[in-house]
């Protein structure tokens, strides 16, 4: 669900920016973050706004399309119906039927995309809000949040990685300001940025906010702090060794990021840093799956 929200917001803002640009607008960064398309396929599609909307929202052969993610989430929800509240189940179901409706393809082709994306985003926030106020604060809730913040941390790192690869990780380079503006808008960090930094858009500040600002709900550090907090709640008598293993991994990642500065990241290379962070997150996710869900 967290991923759907990310995808939809990204689409919305990139669409808005495609309307703003006099030059040809390219969707390639979005495709790189959220799809498994290879270079050629992405290039072929990069300039066709409507095709991208179709592919990203209702593309059946795109494993990360909103339709497929929501279908999976609903399947999961169905199998654990006894653990989630009835309201949550209904939200998931509504969302599922919302993206399934036949008219959607037609709307995405002809109508104002923002209206449609807004509608889908609303399904998502309704789900988040409903979860927050109806779900008992037990183990189930903790696992939902663990998943949510894992996904969010990975997403933020991914977005940064792709966006900065466009400027060859050169933090001194000043791309035109709209570039950073739309990046921030797509992760709802624009207003906070304006309030934190006064001197216009600088790549270094953008990086600092998205990685290290613990008041920014989409930052890497915030997501990992939360992840840790919710993980600590699943501690119980029986699984101490497993718990300790993962607790150690999260704690290690958390402090490694906590004791980083923008300067040290730049010195070691942003790409390397983001990659290491992502790898740690993936390892944590895998270990969680092994220990708690007996997958793999």
């Amino acid at each position, binding site marked *: 669900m967290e991923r759907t929200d990310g995808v939809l917001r990204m689409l919305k803002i990139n669409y808005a920016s495609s*309307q703003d640009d006099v030059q040809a607008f390219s969707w390639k960064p979005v495709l790189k973050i959220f799809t498994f398309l290879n270079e050629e396929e992405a290039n072929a599609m990069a300039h066709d706004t409507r095709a991208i909307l179709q592919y990203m929202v209702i593309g059946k052969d795109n494993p990360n399309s909103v339709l497929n993610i929501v279908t999976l989430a609903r399947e999961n929800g169905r199998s654990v119906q006894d653990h989630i509240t009835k309201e949550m189940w209904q939200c998931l179901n509504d969302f599922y039927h919302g993206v399934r409706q036949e008219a959607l393809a037609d709307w995405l082709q002809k109508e104002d995309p923002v*209206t449609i994306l807004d509608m889908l985003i609303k399904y998502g926030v309704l789900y988040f809000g409903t979860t927050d106020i109806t779900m008992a604060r037990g183990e189930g809730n903790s696992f939902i949040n663990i998943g949510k913040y894992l996904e969010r941390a990975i997403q933020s790192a991914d977005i940064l990685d792709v966006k900065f690869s466009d400027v060859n990780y050169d933090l001194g380079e000043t791309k035109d300001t709209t570039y950073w503006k739309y990046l921030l808008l797509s992760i709802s960090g624009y207003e906070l*940025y304006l309030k934190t930094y*006064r*001197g216009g858009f600088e790549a270094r500040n953008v990086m600092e906010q998205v990685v290290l600002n613990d008041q920014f709900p989409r930052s890497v550090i915030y997501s990992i702090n939360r992840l840790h907090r919710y993980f600590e709640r699943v501690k119980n008598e029986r699984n101490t060794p497993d718990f300790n293993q993962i607790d150690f991994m999260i704690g290690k990642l958390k402090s490694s990021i906590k004791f980083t500065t923008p300067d040290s990241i730049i010195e070691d290379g942003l790409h390397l840093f983001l990659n290491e962070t992502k790898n740690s997150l993936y390892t944590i996710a895998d270990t969680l799956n092994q220990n708690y869900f007996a997958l793999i």
Partner: protein
Amino acid sequence: MQTSELLQSYLVDANTWDEMHGDHAVREQYKNAVEFMQQLSVEELNKKEELAKRLFMSQGVTFTVYSSGEGIEKIFPFDIIPRIITAAEWGFIEKGIKQRLRALNLFLKDIYSSQFIIKDGVMPAEMIYSCPHYLREMHNFPVPYDIYIHISGIDLIRNNDGSFYILEDNLRTPSGVSYMLENREITKRIFPDLLPQNNVRSVTEYPTILHRNLVSLSPRQNKNPTIVLLTPGIYNSAYFEHTTLARLMGVQLVEGSDLVVDNHKVFMKTTSGLQLVDVIYRRVDDDFLDPLIFNADSRLGVAGIMSAYRKGNVAIVNAVGNGVADDKAIYTFVPAMIRYYLNEEPILKNVPTYQLGKDEEREHVFNNIHKMVIKKTNESGGYGMLMGSAATEEEITNYKAEVLQDPRQFIAQPIISLSSAPCYLDGKLQPRRIDLRPYALCGPGGIEIVPGGLTRVALREGSLIVNSSQGGGSKDTWVLAPPPPERGI
């Protein structure tokens, strides 16, 4: 089929420049957009109009009308058909406005210091001293970077041969820029993909440029100066604009009571104590700014703010006392100013203006009163004016008497027919009169004009008054990018 229906009833008034229709055909710049509209049915267009209204409502772009104790939220009328300006036209406007602003800014600096323009006999001294907006408090005070006019919204109109005229200079606290930004957002929503197809230039840079200029004015050499936007409060009709700009720039929105002056420094009251303020973008008029110096009854301003300003401890935007330069009587002298200060010929023309303070000109105006519009020099927003063509004999007689009491306070201009542009009204395109207000920002780096502006439209048929307080609406304003050279035209 709908094609003809949409355009059939489009009858341009004789003797009027129409933005869309010229020489019996649709002008080049409109072709693309008109073709697009023609593919839509009336139902679809109505739906788009409906959507636009709903979007304004949900964005809170509304003003409140109070009747019988209940507030009713209303939106300013928005017409969905954009007004289109070609790259060449824009280039001309841009050059003209920059020239005019350079001259006006030099005039303000001169008039508040050496007053060479009076000593050289270009402008009579009584013109200045009789102007209520001329503030002695500003005398011999060097404003930062010599910039008085940080933000301006100069009104332009087009007469029947298509040439641009300056209608008035708004150099104090020009409003409406949020409509330029919002209208564009709405167009993005109701006509998807139409903007990139037409190569329309973006206006979203405005808050960024303004913010950068405000930062550069800070008297402290500080990377993070405190900037505030001073609003008269939630009952001001432009309050929406103040909140929008504050949010887009990430600055604090304050009212007079949130600020306090101590030892010639301005502070903002915050939960963690007083915070020194470096730059104030004020949307409060001069008269209300400082009760110690100006209007003592004012609760909108801050006591002592002028002393902090004069000490150079805080920058105020726009500078205080600019009213003397956009006074309607001073307006007549702007072409002379351009020649005097810049030694250039004015690019944008003035509307011929008669000073009613001069006997022979007053006589001429009174003799031709049906062809004239008479305005008060210190009023704006379409208040206190007389349209000679529409007024009754009684109104004229009364107005004449009022003029004779203090002729200096009045000017007259021949009624210029504004250009018209298509509006979508009652399921058809109909021509309505429009003007144009581009917004220019001046910082230490020079003058920048965001490609676009506010097009105001007189929605009543035949009406020439575009002010929103008088039944006017607005349109999105497109400035087209120059065609890429290799493609040719």
